[in-house]
Structures are given as structure tokens and as C-alpha cells.
């Protein structure tokens, strides 16, 4: 019975992950598709897509690291009021669905965005003066905005445990501040820097929603190209080949990242953070830090705030519009139905992902030194695979392998479950493992029978973790964009799909609806993340 249960997550992954990937492989290598596939390697268009994908990802990553590095230093080394709150605030952009980020940048910097509107009013202009929509610039801005916290958390987290005495020792030995940083701190920080950069690069490399919306028709990453080849051109062999190229790249990058992360765990005589931090002392220090932090808050908060503000511009009429089914609407249903659909899909995803995740976590629980440790570690890695696979690829694999189910709403739920599953496992597993055998023994020694131990120790601790996992699954499902765009039925759009559709329509009323829907999605996501932070026991980890 127990092993039957343990097999369920494996069966799930084989059917809805490996089988679709196999279908992609098969389509790409099928003989009758040889000509179409060859096109990918001969047509310079695809080379340009690849170059753009890598180029924008590299540029975004470098800029993100450069801009977030001072923040990592400030939060690692200085003790000031509101530090915890500010640091938590930087995570907001990262946890928002990409569709919200994209909408936010349109709302701020687009032709109808608040900055352009303000400038037009101020200088009596006919045309919006700021024209960065559909350019590399706005994509870079959105990527930096989105990934800022990744660098801050990984590098800052490592930095805050680095013994400042090492740098002091270098100073005492005659090094200038700059040389001490260059020769001591930077090399020690290098693995953390590299890990953060790699993770950010992977995110940028597979960026979908941001490029699709902010990049316009001319700019495309591999991910966007796969989507267009599938949905617009129905050129499945090309899409399959592009997916394969992307898969190889992301797997290779993820592998390097996991290696690096293992190296990061190597003890470096790290010190507790509290002994490392010091208050801001000199006036110059205070001014520089305050200026940087002000700029940071402005950059990370303005886009999100501008959505909310702009959505209420018309006195709430955008929200009222969501309930109206206009004849000429492309949706044939009131947009508010998208909210209902999303809630339904998310609830189903929560049930499925939480059950599978709980079973998977318990099947991985085996102690490290047990006979089963090698298979368990392997299984652990397999369970994380969907995390390293882009959403569009997952959706595309579904179309190829499970095309017969096209009309079924199950595809959306399954796709969302696949994306959410690794998060759920990661939320539960450390907790299940942390119920040290000692805790159970301690309860026994205090007179608790085995049944009582399970009820008093296991159940309450795991329930909390399961709730965290469930909320994760819920937020992931609410915001999922890439896979949904490929597998959802047009008449049952989710919130992100509905936003995408109204954004593509002309007219201020449509844009307003996008803003209103984004505000709703943002609110739901923020509530979910708040719940996770509340429920979580112990420190958060990446």
C-alpha cells in the first residue's frame, strides 16, 4: 500500500512530463520532418532568435548583478531600522506573475503609461515622448526589476555570513579598501555571485511573458518563438527542434547551478549575521545608503503601484467593465469569468499538487545514511526536473503528446500541477526531514504512545508545511502564463490569458481592464505570499 502510494508521483511524472518530452524528441527526429527541422539550422532567422535570446539574457544578467550588488552589501553589512521590511519588499516583483510585471511596465512606460501621460500633459505634447515600448531597453528594465531580489538574496545571504575579519586582516596587512575587496572579498564571494548570475540567466533565457508583451512582434526569444511556431504557424517540427535546443541549454545551466550551490554549502568559517552587521556611522555613509535605498524602492515599487493607481483612474469603471459582456468583446464572456476560471483551476491544482507533493516528500524522507540513499537522491533530482523546464516547452509537449485531450480542462490543471509540484515538494521535504527522530523519541520518553506521537508531532508540523505548499501551488497556478497559453481552451481563459488578450486590443477601456485584472491578480498573489511567510517555520531558502 505504502509503495503503491510512493509510485503515484513517479507515474504522474512519467505520464505528464517524460512522455511529453519524448514526444518533442520524436517530432524533432522524425524522418518526415527532416526538411522542416533542417530549416532551423539554415534559416538565419533562427540564428538571430538564438543570438537575441542569449544576448538579452546576458545583458539583463550583468545589469541585474551590477545594480543589485550594492543592495547585497548594504543589507549584509549594515544594521538599520526597517531593513527587514525593505528586504521583504524587494521580493514582491519576483513573486508576481510575469504577466503582471509586463503589464506594470506598460502601465508605467508604455505609450499610454503614466510617465508618458504626465509628460504629455506637462509639456502639451501630442505624441508620447518616451518610446521604449517594444525595445530591448524596456525588456532589460523588466528583467532587472524581476530578478533584483535573486541577486540580493543569494549574494547578500552569503555575504552576511562572511567573516569581516578576513577583510580587516587584509587591511591590517596594508591593503587599501579597494584592494582588500578585490583580492579577498570578491574571490570569496565569487561562487555566490556566479550562482546568482546563473539563476538569473536561466530565468532570462526562458523569459516568455515579458518578451511577448513588451517585446512586440519583432523581438522573440526561443521561448516566444516556440509559442509562435506552435500557435500562429502550427509548425510543430520547428517548434519541437527549438524546444529541444532550449531544453539542452537549460538542463546544462541548471546542472552547473546545482553544482555551484553544493560548493556554496562548503563551510567557510561563516559567522552569525548579527556579529557582522554594524550601524551606519558616518554622515557620508548614511547619505549614500539612503540615496541608494530610495532609488531601489522607487524602481521596485513604482511599476506595481502604477498598475493599482491607473486601474482606479476612471473611478472604478474599469472594474465595472469586467462584469459586462460586450458584443464586440473577443472573449464572448465577461472578463470576470477569467477570475472564476482561475480560481477553479487553482483549487484543483492545489488538491492535486499538494497530495502528490506530500506523497513525494514522504517517499524521499529516508535518512541520508540509509541503504536507500542513492536512489532517493536520484529521485529527488528527478522530482525537481519540471523546475528546470520552461513553461512553454511543457505546454508544447502536452499538445504533442496529449493532443487528444485538447478540449479537456484537465490539461490546464495537469500543466499547473506539473509546474507547482517541485515547489510543493521543496516546501514539505525539509520539514518532514526536520522532524528529527529525536523529536519522536522525546515525545515517547514523555509518555506518548506511537499513535500519540504521530498526532502530536508529525501531524501538526507537516500540516503547516503542507499548507505552505498548497498556497505555493495556488499562487503558481493563478499566475501561470506560458504553459496555459498553449493548453487552455479559448472559451475558458485564466486571468493571465485574459490580461494578455485585452492588452492586445486597442482602446483605453481595454487597457483599463488589463490594469484591473492585473490588480486583482497582484492582490491574490500578494495575499498568498503573505500567507506563506506567516505559515513558514524557519528560514526561507532558494
Amino acid at each position, binding site marked *: 500500500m505504502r509503495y503503491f502510494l510512493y509510485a503515484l508521483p513517479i507515474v504522474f511524472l512519467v505520464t505528464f512530463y517524460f512522455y511529453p518530452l519524448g514526444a518533442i524528441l520524436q517530432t524533432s527526429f522524425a524522418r518526415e520532418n527532416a526538411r522542416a527541422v533542417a530549416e532551423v539550422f539554415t534559416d538565419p532567422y533562427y540564428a538571430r532568435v538564438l543570438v537575441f535570446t542569449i544576448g538579452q539574457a546576458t545583458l539583463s544578467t550583468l545589469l541585474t548583478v551590477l545594480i543589485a550588488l550594492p543592495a547585497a552589501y548594504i543589507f549584509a553589512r549594515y544594521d538599520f531600522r526597517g531593513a527587514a521590511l525593505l528586504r521583504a519588499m524587494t521580493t514582491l516583483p519576483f513573486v508576481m506573475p510575469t504577466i503582471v510585471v509586463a503589464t506594470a511596465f506598460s502601465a508605467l512606460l508604455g505609450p499610454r503609461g503614466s510617465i508618458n501621460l504626465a509628460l504629455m500633459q506637462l509639456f502639451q505634447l501630442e505624441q508620447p515622448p518616451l518610446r521604449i515600448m517594444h525595445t530591448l531597453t524596456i525588456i532589460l528594465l523588466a528583467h532587472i526589476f524581476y530578478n533584483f531580489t535573486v541577486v540580493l538574496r543569494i549574494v547578500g545571504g552569503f555575504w552576511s555570513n562572511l567573516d569581516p575579519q578576513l577583510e580587516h586582516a587584509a587591511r591590517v596587512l596594508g591593503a587599501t579598501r579597494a584592494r582588500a575587496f578585490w583580492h579577498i572579498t570578491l574571490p570569496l564571494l565569487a561562487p555566490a555571485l556566479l550562482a546568482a548570475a546563473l539563476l538569473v540567466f536561466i530565468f532570462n533565457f526562458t523569459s516568455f511573458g515579458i518578451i511577448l508583451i513588451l517585446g512586440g512582434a519583432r523581438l522573440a526569444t526561443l521561448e516566444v518563438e516556440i509559442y509562435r511556431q506552435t500557435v500562429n504557424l502550427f509548425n510543430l517540427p520547428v517548434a519541437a527542434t527549438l524546444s529541444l535546443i532550449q531544453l539542452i541549454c537549460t538542463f546544462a545551466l541548471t546542472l552547473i547551478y546545482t553544482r555551484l550551490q553544493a560548493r556554496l554549502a562548503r563551510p567557510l568559517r561563516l559567522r552569525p549575521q548579527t556579529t557582522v552587521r554594524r550601524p551606519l556611522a558616518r554622515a557620508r555613509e548614511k547619505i549614500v545608503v539612503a540615496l541608494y535605498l530610495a532609488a531601489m524602492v522607487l524602481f521596485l515599487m513604482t511599476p506595481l503601484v502604477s498598475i493599482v493607481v491607473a486601474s482606479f483612474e476612471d473611478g472604478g469603471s474599469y472594474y465595472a467593465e469586467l462584469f459586462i459582456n460586450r458584443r464586440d468583446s473577443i472573449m464572448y464572456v465577461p472578463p470576470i469569468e477569467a477570475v472564476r476560471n482561475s480560481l477553479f483551476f487553482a483549487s484543483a491544482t492545489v488538491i492535486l499538487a499538494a497530495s502528490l507533493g506530500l506523497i513525494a516528500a514522504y517517499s524521499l524522507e529516508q535518512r541520508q545514511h540509509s541503504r536507500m540513499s542513492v536512489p532517493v537522491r536520484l529521485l529527488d533530482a528527478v522530482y525537481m526536473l519540471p523546475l528546470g523546464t520552461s513553461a512553454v516547452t511543457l505546454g508544447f509537449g502536452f499538445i504533442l503528446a496529449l493532443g487528444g485531450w485538447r478540449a479537456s480542462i484537465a490539461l490546464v490543471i495537469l500543466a499547473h500541477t506539473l509546474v507547482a509540484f517541485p515547489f510543493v515538494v521543496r516546501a514539505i521535504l525539509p520539514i518532514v526531514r526536520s522532524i528529527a527522530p529525536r523529536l519522536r*523519541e*522525546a*515525545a515517547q520518553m514523555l*509518555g506518548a504512545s506511537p499513535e*500519540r506521537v504521530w498526532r502530536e508531532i508529525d501531524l501538526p508540523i507537516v500540516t503547516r508545511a503542507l499548507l505552505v505548499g498548497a498556497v505555493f501551488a495556488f499562487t503558481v497556478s493563478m499566475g501561470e502564463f506560458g504553459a496555459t497559453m498553449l493548453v487552455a481552451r479559448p472559451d475558458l481563459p485564466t486571468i493571465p490569458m485574459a490580461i494578455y488578450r485585452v492588452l492586445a486590443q486597442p482602446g483605453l477601456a481595454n487597457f483599463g481592464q488589463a490594469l484591473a485584472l492585473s490588480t486583482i491578480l497582484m492582490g491574490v498573489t500578494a495575499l498568498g505570499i503573505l500567507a506563506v511567510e506567516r505559515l513558514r517555520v524557519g528560514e526561507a531558502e532558494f
Partner: protein
Amino acid sequence: MLELVNITKQYAGAPLLHDISLTIHAGEIVSLLGPSGSGKTTLLRIIAGLEQPEQGEVIFEGRHLRDVPPHRRGIGMMFQDLALFPHKNVFENVAFGLRMQGLARAEIRARVHETLTLVGLAGFAERDVNNLSGGEQQRVALARALAPRPRLLMFDEPLGALDRLLREQLVTELRAILKRIGMTALYVTHDQDEAFAMADRVAILHATRIVQLGTPAEIYRAPANTFVAQFLGLTNLFPARQRDDGTVETGLGEFALPPTGHPGGPSVYALIRPERVRISTTGIAAQVEECVFRAGKYRARVLTAQGARMTIETENALALGATIHLHIQTIELIQE
């Protein structure tokens, strides 16, 4: 009260405990002292019922415990890593054992507060155990173990993670608390000072056996063998041979047979305590290799003319490299 009879336990194919027998009387605190890996914790876990011995019996208040599960043994235990329940606050942690006994709410409340006061944590009831200092967490774990009033309380290196000063303070306090309520206790540690300060009697575990059992003073005055002596920091040990004429021959010369303690057997050692060595004008010549000030006296390491190294105590500092003469007042003989 607690009787261990011929306990034998293997670990990974090698013997870990061999034929261990030990009796603990009611109200007594016994320390189990030994280096890490000597099986102390395993013995504790066998008494607790968390592990089963291959051979031997645990008899507790006249009852054989072989088939009694841990939660019915009425034995309390404080774990090395404390094992405080992270999802319960201080009050709930301490109340846990009382709830398992099915006590009434009001009584649980009263007992928890009484126990928290006893360990010096009055007013901590509603605190989150994850946000307490190391010392405070120790006290919560102690209160949790004490609250159900077990008839025997076992400690598995409970102070291991604390710094020396706090540890010394807590040992004194812990002993006072246990004595005040007349608790019978078994205290496992690898720290000799801790064991001696804590216990009425100390059992020293070495190479699968209890090599010596006695009061701290008995053990210090007459270590059973060279292992115990070295464990106590008595390092001036020299192979010795007993002669028929009542003298003892060592590498440092001949000595009169000490009045007490004549272990038989082929391999005996002469133990020379630092305080039994005087500097004089004649006697064994030795060169000073090192001299440090420690605990009110100078401790010097010297190399004798015979090529033996030993530690001596002096009132005054000795110059490095200086040649001195040593007069050894008495020696003791112990087994290898």
C-alpha cells in the same frame, strides 16, 4: 532502583558494550563518563527502551523492562540536541508529558508553572522555544523532563553545546535542583570536570566495559588503570616492576613499595603525581623544557637524565633549559 545486568550490544559488527552491570540507588546521581564513541549514549538508549540489547536485562524498581515500550517505562530523558518541539511554545513543551498522563487542566497549569519556577524560567510560559537563548532552551528541556516527575531522569550530554563558563554554572545549578527534589539521575558526559561536579558516583566506560565505578574522590585518589589516570589528566606514568624485596623498579630508579594498593599482574605502572615531586639539591637530574603558570602554580614539563618526560608543580617560575634536581616523595602503582 535501576539495575543493569550483563548488558551486551554490538554496533556495526563490533562489540560496543560488553557485559555491563551497574546498580543505581534511589536518590543517587550517577555519571557515566567516557570518551566519545564509547557507547555511553547507546547504554542510555537501551535503558530508555529506544534500543534493544543483544543480551542482558534492564530491571527498574524490580520490574524487567524487556517488553515495556519506552512510553510506559516512566523514565525521563534530556537529549543532547534537546529536541524541543518547535511547533509548541514553552508552556506546551513542558505540559506535554503531563498531558500524556491525562492530568486535569488546572493541575497541568499548576505543575508547569511550578516546574518553570524551579528551573528559573518563571514568566517564560508563552515564549516561542525557537527564540530562546541556548541556556534558556536547556532549562526548558530540563523542565519538560522534570514535569512528569519521572522516577529516573537520564541526561545525554545536555550541556555539550554550551561554553565552559555557562556549563560550570549550569552543572552546579542542575545538581542543586536534582538534589532538592531527590531525583534519581543518570548523567552521561565525556567531560571529566562535569561528571565529577555532578555525580555522587562516577562510572568510567572504556573499550566496551565499565573500568571503574566509585565516588569522584575515590576515583581521583586511586585510578583503576592508566586509561583512567590519563583521562583525569595524570600523565606521569612509567612502566614499573615489583621486586620480591618490597621495592619497585622504574626507569627513574628504585622506589619503596607504597603502603596501599598493590595491583598484581605483569604490567604495572608507576603513577607520580605532580604535587608529590619536590625540587631539591640532589636527586634525579632534569632539564626544564616548558614552564607555564596555571591555576595559581607553575606547571613545568621536564626531561630527566634517564630520558623520561614528566610534569611537575612548583611555587616559582623555572628558567627554560635550566638543570634542576627532583626528589620524588611517593609513587603509586596502578594497572595498565
